[in-house]
Structures are given as structure tokens and as C-alpha cells.
């Protein structure tokens, strides 16, 4: 490894590469932060440009966008309760309440620190022990995946609301929404009502934009701005304490950060899962082991750290199966696979032998991107907090305009805009009745994996579901699920007793 470092560093450290990584981060953060625009589409659109660049420059650009985009979603999640990316849905739960308390600066900084540290550690893991982790990830067959998804869904349903029944119901409804369209196995149509547009299922991005951004727009329009004084989303506290993360606060969260990073790497390394799951599982784990679980959902800094570290730690983790096995873990890494191929880098076991110099140059790029990420995000923070001083009467009409344009342009299909409106209204009604919307999204994301992994398990075991309880890794997740649900009921009861 060391023999490759010097030539790799020479390859990477050019002014051009540094500028390109910064540009990628900048684009990623901006796109991630604007509800209605999305990172996978941006990566796809930048793709043809990268074909004509040097391999290191092209790949670094996309990695920058990937990292920046995964982080950027948290900005709008904190400031206007609208996650710019699915991964940031967990960040809303505590980030927005903090912003409402005037502590937007604190939440945003926590999100930067969490993201950068999570990324950094996961990159180091990628560079040092990728092959070993990939070997473990391959042990996850259909049965293990089913138990993991089941565990994740229960966690999300339970932690995202005080009211666990409502959280679980929302997750169930999300699974139902996912069943609309063609069944992934037999191809038979389900609940399509004869509409051709529904054969491929409910499109994801319009569903996401509607559920979070449009529903928030309806919430906002309930309250008029007064014409006499400026009505803004959330006031920013003048108190310096409220705009920074103190060393004491940081120290108190180190455990959460490490735990979330490990969860993020683990989940990232399993193809087909992704950063949103990691954010929620980290959040749930943090809540269950916190000294102040009752603060979660009301502006807990720990919650922001857990969610943001958890989702950004996935970026390094997701590169593990991509580079070592050629198997992409999510939509963005799937597109990145194309870039590697275009530059003659065939991901897989022999990549590290054949193109070692380029790969190590890319690794150096990852680490450099982390450092740049910290600075670019810190500069951006000042800019983004300014958003809060814009009148709501201007800010939200702009948001809705971008939502319409964003939903339309994903597939150039007007049907998608109707889907967005439908989920906007649904999200609004759910919020009014205190049903959390995040589990619905997660139910949608995980629904098809839940179904296919169960079917695969049953086919492989000739119709039996026993392997779920007999295979060790799978059994572990089943036990974890039971433990998790009981434990969170227990801490809820305890905290309620404390209040009385």
C-alpha cells in the first residue's frame, strides 16, 4: 500500500483536481439543500462530462457531489423542516425543533461535524479493510437481508414518533404504497387501476418531494405573515452559545458519533440498503442508549449527531462493495460504476492490483474531500442561515416552484407532478393527525426489498420461513428487533413516570 502512496499523491495533488473536488462538493451541497432537486439526477447529468475528463478528476468530481449531496439534505431539513434528500429525513426530527429554538447554527454545525467525522472514519475503513468487510457483507443472503429490513422498519416505526402505533401504521402504509405497480417477482399488476403510469410503481422522487416539501408548504400557508413586521421561518438567536457546538457538547456526543459511524459503514457495505436506513437506525440506537431519551424529537443535539453521522458514514461504506465486488449499493454508486468502467477501471477483486496507483489517488481524493467538505460547509453555513431571514411569503412560493419543476423534470412526465400533489396532501393530513411521515417513506423504500428477500428465502428453503430463526446473523436481528421494541417501550414509560 505504502509503495503506491507516493505516485498516487503525485497523481492526485494538482490544482485542477483540488478545484474539481471543491466544485463537486459545492454542487452536491447546493443540490442536496434545495428541496425538489436531487443528487442521483445530478450525478447522472454530470456523467457524460466526466467521460472526457482524466479518470481521477472525473471520479473525484462525482465523489464530491455524492458526499456533499448526502450532507446537503440536512441543511433544508434543519432550516425549513424539509429534507432535501431521503437521508436527511431523520435529521428533521431534532434539527428543525432546534432551529425553532433559535439554535439553527448549533444544529447545522453539529450536522457538519457529524457528517465529516462519519465520512472520515468510513473512508479510512474503506482504504484499510475493504476486502475483509466485503467478505462479511457477502454472507448476507436473502434471509439476513429480510431480518435486517424487518429490524430497520420496526426501529423506524418505533423511534419516529411518541406514538408508536402511529409510527408503525405509517410504515405499513408505506409498504402498501410500494406494492402499487408491477409485482417485482411475477410481474403481475397490483392496484394500478388500469393506469399505465402506475405499472412501474409510484415514482420515488415525486413521492418524496410531496411527502416532505409540499406538505410543509401547506403547514406554512396556514399562518399568514403579518404585513407590518417581517415574518421569517425561525429567528436566529443572537447568543453565541446557541450558534456553536461547545467542546463539552461535542465530548458528550463522541459515543453517539462513533456508534453511528459504525452503523453507517455496516449498512453502507450491504448493497441495496442505503443512507436513509442508516440515519434512522443510528437515531434509534442513540435514543435507546441516551441519558435523555425524552428530549429526542424536541431538539436533541444527540439526535442530529446520530442522524447526520449515520447517513454520511454510508458514503465510504457504500464504496466497499462497489470497488471490491463491482456491486453498487445505491442509486448514486450505481451511476458511479459507469464512470469507473468508462475509464477502464473495472471494479472487482483485481482492481487494487491492476490500477493501484489510480485507486490510491482516488482514496487520497476522498480524504482531501473530507477536509474540503468541512471548510466549504462552514462557509456555506453562513449563507444558508441567511435563508432564515427571508420572509416566509417569498421563501415558500419559491420552494413550491422548485418542487413542481423538480418533480416534472425527473421523468418529463406531468403525471409525476400529480403524484407529488397527492403525497403533499397525504403528508399534510398525516402531520395534522400526528402521524409521522418518515416511516411512510422508509416503508416505501424498503417494501420491495422486504418482499423479494422473503420470497427468495422461501424459494431457497422450499417454502419454509424457518431459516429466519435458524441462521445466526438473521436470528441476531430478530432478537435485536424484539429487544429494541421492548426497550423503547420501557424507556418511554420511565420518562413518563419521571415527568409525573
Amino acid at each position, binding site marked *: 500500500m505504502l509503495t503506491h502512496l507516493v505516485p498516487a499523491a503525485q497523481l492526485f495533488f494538482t490544482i485542477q483536481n483540488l478545484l474539481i473536488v471543491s466544485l463537486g462538493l459545492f454542487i452536491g451541497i447546493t443540490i442536496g439543500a434545495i428541496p425538489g432537486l436531487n443528487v442521483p439526477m*445530478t450525478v447522472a*447529468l454530470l456523467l457524460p462530462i466526466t467521460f472526457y475528463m482524466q479518470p481521477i478528476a472525473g471520479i473525484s468530481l462525482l465523489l464530491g457531489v455524492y458526499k456533499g449531496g448526502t450532507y446537503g439534505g440536512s441543511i433544508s431539513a434543519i432550516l425549513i423542516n424539509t429534507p432535501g434528500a431521503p437521508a436527511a429525513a431523520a435529521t428533521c426530527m431534532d434539527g428543525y425543533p432546534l432551529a425553532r429554538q433559535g439554535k439553527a447554527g448549533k444544529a447545522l454545525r453539529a450536522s457538519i461535524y457529524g457528517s465529516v467525522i462519519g465520512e472520515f472514519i468510513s473512508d479510512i475503513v474503506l482504504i484499510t479493510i475493504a476486502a475483509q468487510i466485503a467478505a462479511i457483507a457477502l454472507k448476507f443472503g436473502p434471509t439476513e437481508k429480510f431480518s435486517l429490513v424487518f429490524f430497520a422498519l420496526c426501529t423506524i416505526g418505533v423511534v419516529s414518533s411518541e*406514538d408508536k*402505533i*402511529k409510527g*408503525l*401504521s405509517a410504515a*405499513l*402504509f408505506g*409498504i*402498501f404504497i410500494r*406494492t402499487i405497480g408491477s*409485482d417485482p*417477482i*411475477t*410481474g*403481475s*399488476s*397490483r*392496484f*394500478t387501476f388500469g393506469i399505465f403510469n402506475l405499472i412501474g410503481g409510484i415514482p420515488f422522487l415525486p413521492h418524496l418531494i410531496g411527502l416532505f416539501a*409540499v406538505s410543509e*408548504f*401547506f403547514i*406554512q*400557508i*396556514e399562518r*399568514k*405573515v403579518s*404585513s407590518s413586521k417581517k*415574518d421569517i421561518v425561525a429567528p436566529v438567536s443572537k447568543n453565541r452559545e446557541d450558534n456553536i457546538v461547545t467542546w463539552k457538547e461535542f465530548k458528550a456526543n463522541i459515543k453517539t458519533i462513533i456508534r453511528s459511524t459504525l452503523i453507517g459503514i455496516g449498512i453502507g457495505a450491504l448493497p441495496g440498503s442505503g443512507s436513509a436506513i442508516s440515519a434512522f437506525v443510528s437515531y434509534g440506537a442513540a435514543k435507546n442508549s441516551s441519558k435523555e431519551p425524552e428530549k429526542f424529537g424536541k431538539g436533541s443535539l444527540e439526535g442530529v449527531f446520530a442522524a447526520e453521522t449515520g447517513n454520511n458514514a454510508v458514503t465510504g461504506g457504500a464504496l466497499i462493495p462497489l470497488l471490491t465486488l463491482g456491486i453498487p449499493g445505491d442509486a448514486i454508486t450505481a451511476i458511479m460504476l459507469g464512470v469507473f468502467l468508462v475509464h477502464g477501471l473495472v471494479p472487482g477483486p483485481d482492481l487494487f492490483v491492476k490500477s493501484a496507483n489510480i485507486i490510491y489517488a482516488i482514496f487520497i481524493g476522498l480524504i482531501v474531500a473530507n477536509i474540503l467538505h468541512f471548510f466549504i460547509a462552514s462557509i456555506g453555513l453562513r449563507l444558508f442561515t441567511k435563508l432564515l431571514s427571508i*420572509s416566509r*411569503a*417569498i421563501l*415558500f*412560493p*419559491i420552494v*413550491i*416552484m422548485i418542487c*413542481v*419543476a423538480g418533480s*416534472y*423534470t425527473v421523468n*418529463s412526465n406531468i403525471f409525476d407532478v*400529480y403524484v407529488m*400533489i397527492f403525497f*403533499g*396532501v397525504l403528508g*399534510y393530513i398525516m*402531520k*395534522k*393527525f*400526528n402521524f409521522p411521515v418518515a416511516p411512510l417513506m422508509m416503508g416505501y423504500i424498503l*417494501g420491495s426489498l*422486504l*418482499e423479494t428477500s422473503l*420470497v427468495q428465502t*422461501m*424459494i431457497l428453503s422450499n*417454502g419454509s420461513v424457518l431459516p429466519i430463526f435458524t441462521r445466526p446473523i438473521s436470528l441476531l436481528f430478530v432478537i435485536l428487533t424484539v429487544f429494541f421494541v421492548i426497550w423503547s417501550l420501557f424507556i418511554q414509560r420511565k420518562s413518563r413516570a419521571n415527568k409525573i
Partner: protein
Amino acid sequence: MKLPFLRHTNPRRIIEGGVLILLGGAILLLIPVEIQRISGMETKLSPSFLPSTVAILLILMGLALVIQGILPPRPVESKSTFTSRESTFRVLLSIVLLIVYSILFPIIGFVATSALFFFIYAYLFGMRNLIKMTGGGIAASVIVWLFFEKLFNIPLPHGVLF
């Protein structure tokens, strides 16, 4: 005079539970009509397995909510989140407007429609500064258009106007 156990009833929770039960029931009713069966594929699990399971679990969740609504101890307080009748009207109106917006922009053109609806929405929010309302709308919609069409090369509909 109320019966003693009714003192605890939480009608809102019962309604919410009822809606979930209805939802689950509706899914169950739709399954035979809306799930097409393709023969010849042996999968061990029929396409209607997951939807029916979800529907039954939804009904159970609904029942749990109803029971919680009737029986003491009272569960987590549901905050009264509904505001005045006027804001409900404003929300309903903005939903209708959003539908009109999405029908209109492919016909008239994205930029013109967006500027118009920016104006209307800003007005609904209570903004009365005409310069900000028109200027802001035109500026924002032109920027969005530039972003998508010129930077990313994804066309937005232009319709008859722009």
C-alpha cells in the same frame, strides 16, 4: 351524565383508528379485483401476500388506537393541531391552486405560470408588496428555468407563452 369509562374517551383517537381500519379493509376488498394473477410462475408466495398482511396489520393497528381511545389510562396527548377555520380554508385553496398550477404550466409555459402562481401564493401568505410579488416571481421562475434548461439541459414545457 356520562358513563364512568367514557370519561376517558378520546374521540379523535377513535376516529384515527377507524380510518386505519377502513384503509385496511379497503385494501383487502381491492386485492381480488386489483391484483392480476399470472399463472406458471411458481414463487411460494403469491403477489397478494404482502398487501393482505399489511392490510390486516393496519386493521390491528386501528383497533389498538380505538381501544386506546376508549380505555384508561389516557395515552400520549394528541395536541390540538387544527388552527382556525380561515387557515383551513387557505390550505384547501392552496391545494386547489396547486392542481390548477400543474394543469396550466404544460399549456401556458413554466416560466409564465410560475411567476403568476408565485404572485398568488405570496398574496395568500399575506404579502402585499406588489413590487416584491411580481419581481420576485419573475426572477425566481427565470432562475429556475435557467437552472434546468441552460445548466442541466432538461427542457421545461414552454406552452403558448413561455
